[in-house]
């Protein structure tokens, strides 16, 4: 057994997040009031102890967490090394016996002062005391401490269960008036970093989240928080893309509606996730990278241009030319293609009304085409269950362009005169 202990110096409420992020390194995690324990002995085939420590240091740095580390063969020694430093158990101060008595819930060791008065300053000194003398000199606690010190690896690990809700809050040192978005951006970055570490450990992607701006709690007005919900077009697993998307959305929102008061902090709550089946990257394939880049691209385009502005197209089984395709974002959707004569690549929406004047076709906006020949008609009608339509299409060659025009009744009444419309251009 090799146990790595991360002792958090400040804000123990972050322990849950840290422990959850550590699931990426080992499934055997334990949590105490002030420390996270990882059993990394069974993960040696994945990474060495040195690599694991290095990666954990990077994790702590990226999430802006500060923790002391200790590595040993049992949880108690790992915690004691993290707290007191040192390289061997014998050098640890006698106060470290509290870690050995209850490694996952240590209490200050009451007998430490007595030991020191008797000249027992370190655990090395404590070990030198003959075992038979312990009950008579130090009573039951002394013997128990001795037993725990000798058999420190025989300890039951409490079960760690990650919280259902994923939420991260980052605060300013003191509430600040927000004039530019940059300070908010840095808070968001730290919060997102922690969110993604937790999601990565759970093998999940982010699909939707809420951003809460926590306003000055001493404010006279009623508003204490402003909540913005963001749903990503495609689930994402990378900080960069989500951060740029959130930046765009929130920057715009704060410009339009500035915060009513000073900002204390920002919290992000995960509202929806999707499974991340490809969390392990394939060195020879760029598929995962491209999928991430694709999700990010679609998200940013839709955020700026609107939800319908970026799409893939699939054929739809309808005769009406403008309805013969549909928007999608599913690459695998093939749709149903209806065989028809060759259509023009450019379609006017809505069709442009034309008037015929001799050899000329004249549009309502005074554009003119002199036609030389035409083919047709191709009769299209149907969809009575919707609005219904009845059109006769002609392929018209003009001196400049090849046009696709149709005639159709101008009104809905029976026998109403037929009009002429330009519907497409063979460009």
């Amino acid at each position, binding site marked *: 057994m090799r146990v790595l202990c991360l002792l958090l110096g400040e804000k123990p409420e972050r322990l849950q997040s840290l422990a959850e992020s550590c699931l990426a390194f080992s499934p055997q995690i334990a949590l105490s009031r002030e420390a996270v324990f990882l059993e990394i002995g069974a993960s040696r085939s994945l990474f060495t102890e040195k690599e694991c420590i290095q990666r954990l240091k990077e994790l702590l740095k990226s999430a802006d967490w500060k923790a002391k580390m200790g590595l040993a063969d049992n949880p108690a020694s790992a915690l004691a090394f993290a707290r007191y430093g040192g390289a061997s158990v014998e050098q640890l101060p006698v106060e470290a016996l509290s870690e050995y008595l209850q490694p996952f819930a240590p209490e200050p060791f009451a007998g430490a002062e007595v030991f020191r008065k008797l000249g027992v300053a370190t655990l090395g000194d404590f070990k030198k005391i003959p075992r038979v003398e312990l009950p008579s000199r130090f009573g039951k606690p002394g013997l128990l401490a001795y037993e725990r010190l000798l058999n420190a690896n025989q300890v039951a690990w409490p079960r760690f269960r990650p919280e259902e809700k994923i939420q991260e809050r980052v605060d300013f040192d003191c509430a600040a008036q927000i004039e530019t978005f940059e300070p908010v951006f840095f808070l968001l970055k730290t919060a997102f970093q922690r969110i993604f570490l937790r999601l990565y450990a759970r093998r999940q992607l982010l699909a939707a989240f809420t951003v809460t701006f926590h306003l000055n709690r001493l404010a006279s007005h009623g508003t204490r928080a402003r909540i913005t919900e963001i749903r990503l077009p495609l689930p994402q697993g990378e900080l960069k893309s989500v951060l740029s998307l959130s930046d765009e959305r929130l920057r715009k929102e704060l410009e339009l509606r500035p915060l009513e008061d000073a900002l204390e902090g920002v919290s992000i709550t995960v509202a929806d996730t999707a499974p991340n089946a490809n969390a392990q990257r394939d060195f020879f394939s760029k598929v995962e990278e491209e999928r991430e880049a694709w999700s990010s*691209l679609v998200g940013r*385009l839709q955020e700026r241009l609107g939800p319908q502005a970026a799409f893939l197209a699939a*054929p739809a089984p309808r005769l009406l030319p*403008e309805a*013969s395709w549909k928007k999608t974002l599913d690459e695998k959707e093939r749709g149903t*293609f209806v065989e*028809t004569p060759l259509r023009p690549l450019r379609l006017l929406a809505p069709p442009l009304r034309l008037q015929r004047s001799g050899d000329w076709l004249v549009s309502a906006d005074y554009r003119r085409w002199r036609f030389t020949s035409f083919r047709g008609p191709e009769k299209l009608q149907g969809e009575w269950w919707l609005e219904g339509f009845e059109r006769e299409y002609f392929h018209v060659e003009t001196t400049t362009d090849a046009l696709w025009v149709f005639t159709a009744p101008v009104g809905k009444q029976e026998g109403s005169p037929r009009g002429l419309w330009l519907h497409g251009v063979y460009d």
Partner: protein
Amino acid sequence: MSAVLQELRARLGALQSHSASAAFPYSLLPNGLPRGALAEITGPGKTEAAAQLLAENPHLRCAWIEKRFSLLPSALLQREVNLQKIFFVEAGEQSAWAASLILRSGIFPLVVYSAPYGEERELRRLQLLSERSSATTLLLGDQPQTDAWPIRLSLVSHGRRLQVRKGG
């Protein structure tokens, strides 16, 4: 061990050769359409010419940016274009921004840009991004941009053939 190394080298070589081909095959141009450059097609038939390029390169992923979307995707399908590989963007006034973002993403080796262009700074930016991502940006316009030096290849469409006006 050496067998493993050889296999690794072969796989890396395959990846490198795949990314290093200099042009997209295109029957209307004897040398194909160059990669990592800005090219324009103007005149009637430009959209058909772009569709033909896509039909001849069915595995090519393409982003098609329009100022106002007027394409008929089912008509592209009739011209044997692989519609699943085409990503459409209706970008309005932000077409240049959309093109920059798409080129930066590095996903698409071909970007078709059907929106007004001509401002030199904008073209220069597209040219640099195209070079960096080894992608070709194909501009579709009504009139050729005579003074636009970032455009490496200028083609004029005449029905079913292309005339090289500049570059090539």
